[in-house]
């Protein structure tokens, strides 16, 4: 079946550096993608979304890039801060949201 997957299960970055979290998806019919952040003991929190007719979208310190040719999604976090430490999920939407397996981002002091 179709699935959403992440290249790396864990990522460690130095405070102040930029972070890039990658996601591969396999269903070309997906029309909408979301990145979620989940802190320990909390529910997933919406970060940013992008529709399939776009290839880039920017938010506050975050940018999502979509490459439909290779079915790849990435989340870039600028000037990573300790509060960015969390598990990050990408999700794709066809009939419903399907989540990837998550990447644990750890910010080192």
């Amino acid at each position: 079946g179709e699935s959403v997957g992440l290249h790396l299960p864990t990522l460690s970055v130095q405070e102040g550096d930029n972070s890039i979290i990658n996601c591969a998806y396999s269903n070309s019919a997906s029309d909408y993608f979301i990145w979620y952040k989940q802190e320990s003991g909390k529910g997933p929190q919406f970060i940013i979304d992008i529709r399939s007719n776009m290839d880039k979208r920017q938010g506050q310190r975050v940018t999502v890039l979509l490459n439909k040719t290779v079915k790849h999604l990435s989340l870039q976090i600028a000037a990573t801060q300790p509060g960015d430490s969390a598990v990050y999920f990408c999700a794709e939407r066809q009939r419903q949201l399907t989540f990837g397996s998550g990447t644990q981002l750890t910010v080192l002091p």
Partner: protein
Amino acid sequence: DTAVSQTPKYLVTQMGNDKSIKCEQNLGHDTMYWYKQDSKKFLKIMFSYNNKELIINETVPNRFSPKSPDKAHLNLHINSLELGDSAVYFCASSQDSRGSEAFFGQGTRLTVV
């Protein structure tokens, strides 16, 4: 004001018991969901309700029965609990029925012993 609230936050119970988890959203959304997150953090949709009507029912044992008394509430009742039901259960809501910008509750950690 909590947008999506679910209770209880923790639930420890014995095998074979029946338990319920409650969820309420004050966002005025039309669609509510239940997700299950396993020990590896994998999130999988279980059910989706739109305006009190079931629209998605993934491959979930029929021991799990969602109930939506109104569009602001979606409760999850689980019969004859099994060890494998131990997980974190998340309620969520969204304005449309396809999950756009879904808002999640804090989760209910269910432990079956």
